[in-house]
């Protein structure tokens, strides 16, 4: 499958034949290739165990590929993990921060870890307001925060890092519809800042709504990858739901999606 939809545009994030076989022999990723341009949102869809999180972990340098390369702005992640991570902001499925710290203290710590040492408390307040956390909670300990509030703090940390690439690992999973909607709006705003965004998700509706490119993963392979224009008007939801429900052969999925 030709996964290069960028033409001559230099990708901000690139997977080249990315393969990962774990020590127990499980092949989690099997020659996966894709590219994401600056300002582009790439949604990686798939069920549990499809290989989405492994892909993200390879870009974060938490794993070394068995074969192939994860590249961020020309930096091969497993060769120069620290350099690569300077280019990445990451929001996980379940953002867990220090519960003894206030929202501002958490932001301060993670911003400094991200190499940003000149932010003021005013900057932290501004970004918290931007992600939708009202001023009355800025100095409250995280122990009292709901999951939606913590996810907002997570995206605030990603905004503060101001990295060219953002990795989102199922960021809306478990959020109520309102919180999920707010979160998607935030992500949309980041795309306008020319960030390359890789988002893994189960949620095809949100993926279709905001993604520039959607890829479906199964058993460590990308079985379908299409741009927003290609998907437009197709009954992707039905195909994906069939696929997610199981029993649908890869070829059928691809065929139906391309129909």
């Amino acid at each position: 499958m030709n996964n290069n939809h960028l033409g001559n545009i230099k990708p901000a994030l690139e997977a080249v034949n990315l393969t990962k076989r774990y020590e127990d022999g499980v092949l989690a990723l099997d020659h996966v290739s894709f590219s994401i341009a600056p300002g582009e949102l790439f949604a990686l869809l798939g069920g549990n165990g499809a290989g989405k999180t492994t892909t993200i972990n390879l870009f974060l340098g938490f794993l070394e590929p068995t074969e192939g390369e994860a590249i961020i702005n020309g930096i091969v992640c497993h060769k120069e993990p620290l350099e690569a991570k300077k280019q990445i902001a990451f929001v996980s499925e379940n953002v867990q921060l220090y519960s003894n710290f206030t929202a501002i203290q958490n932001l301060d710590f993670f911003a400094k870890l991200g190499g940003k040492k000149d932010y003021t408390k005013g900057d932290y307040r501004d970004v918290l307001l931007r992600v939708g956390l009202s001023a009355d909670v800025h100095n409250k300990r995280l122990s009292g925060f709901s999951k939606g509030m913590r996810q907002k703090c997570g995206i605030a940390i990603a905004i503060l890092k101001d990295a060219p690439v953002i990795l989102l690992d199922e960021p809306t999973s478990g959020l109520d519809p309102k919180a999920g909607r707010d979160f998607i709006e935030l992500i949309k705003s980041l795309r306008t800042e020319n960030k390359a965004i890789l988002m893994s998700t189960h949620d095809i509706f949100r993926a279709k709504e905001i993604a520039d490119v959607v890829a479906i993963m199964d058993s460590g392979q990308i079985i379908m990858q299409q741009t927003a224009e290609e998907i437009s008007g197709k009954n992707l939801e039905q195909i994906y739901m069939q696929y997610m429900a199981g029993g649908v052969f890869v070829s059928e999925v691809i065929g139906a999606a391309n129909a």
Partner: protein
Amino acid sequence: MLKVIIEKEIRDLISSTKFIITFGACAFLIIVAFYVGTTRFNLNQAYYEASRAENIRSMEGMTDWNELESNRIFLAPTPLASLVSGVSNDIGRTAVVEGRGSIPIEDSRYNEDPIFAIFRFLDLEFIFKVLLSLFAILLGYDAISGEKERGTLRLAFANALPRQTYILGKLIGTFAALSISVLVAIAVGTLMMPMMGISLSGNDWIRLLLIIMAGLLYAGVFLTLSVFVSSLTNRSANSFLVLLVIWVFCIHIVPRVSVLMAARSVDVLSVDEIAFQQSGLRAQLLDEVSEGMENFKFAGANDDIDALSNQLNAHMDSLSNVRDSKMQSFSSRLYEERGNGQKTQERLAFALARISPATSLTLATSYLAGTSIGLKNRFQDEAKSYQEQYGSFLKEKTGSNTGGGLRIRQSTACTAAEDKENEDAKKEIPKGVDTKELPEFKYTDVTPTESVQAAVVDMGLLLFFNLIFFAGAFVAFGKYDVR
């Protein structure tokens, strides 16, 4: 970046409930240890003064140094011995010194108050040994695994954060939080001492600082160990369980088992056995003395009672000297044999027990406080050198170093003219002995340099354990799956 991690670690720890609770308990007990130690020192000091006064008072009625059969000397209490008891409560505080012969040591605190022997005293060494180690474990057991469980590790390492920096920051930050809080509690405790009337000498301050340093090194061992174990597991519950088992072994099992193993491996002549052999020899020597007395032949005129008295005394002295010398050399040989056995046993027990850092803490602090296992021998040696002084004094005053005992007074054989003089003298009030003439016993404690020299092995071992576990944590975290 290191500073950021250290600051975060300190802030995260001191705002956590577990820190507040464990620090509260630890600080409270450290202050209690100082209070108990200070109160006990004041009591022991009063007891010491009273015992000395009583000893002098008991001599007040004496008119002749010949009446003095023995003198009691006392081990003066020290403030540091109240903070680190060591063996000070196990050995006697009073030595009964005669002009010659063995010096029994009596009045051990545990002998007087057996209840303290059951539960032991709550001293600073105990608090350090039990609580500082637990405090360190509670701060470190989830240092890595807990961050992983909470998900903060993954987020932190999504940044350009070198692992070495992170683990170093963790260790420094946790150690700083622990040591600062412990030092605050110790400072409060130390301030209580002058407030309760105890002034520490310059040497005592040096020793106390070194004891605190040993305590912090010991806490550091358990902290680095905890972070190391935490870097080997993914679950803090597992890490805590492993550390708890290690803690129980280090504090309660290893030292006791080591002593048992050493006792089984090295035979030491028991005191009972020595007493049995001594009594055998004593019977034999008594026979020899009896024989010697029978062999006494008076060389002089039959009515020369003075000459008889002198010759008999000289003969008896010579027999006693021979008997004492034989007994002494025999006893010395047996005690030397026992002492050598004990030293071998002690060396083996300490070598085995030093697997546990708790042993090193106990040994280092007791060396520094002057309450180590050598205290009894030192007191005995000091008492022996005092015995020489005391013996010379008696000899000077009474003509013999035995004091009291079987001596025939020359006054029993006197001329009629002397009888008259004596009769006159009896009418005068007998003049008491001047107890101020009695040589004073002053226990000289080991110097700080000697203490440090003795403690350096164990301080070094504590440092070594720190470095080993630190290196372990470093290596383990280098391979840790931070996902």
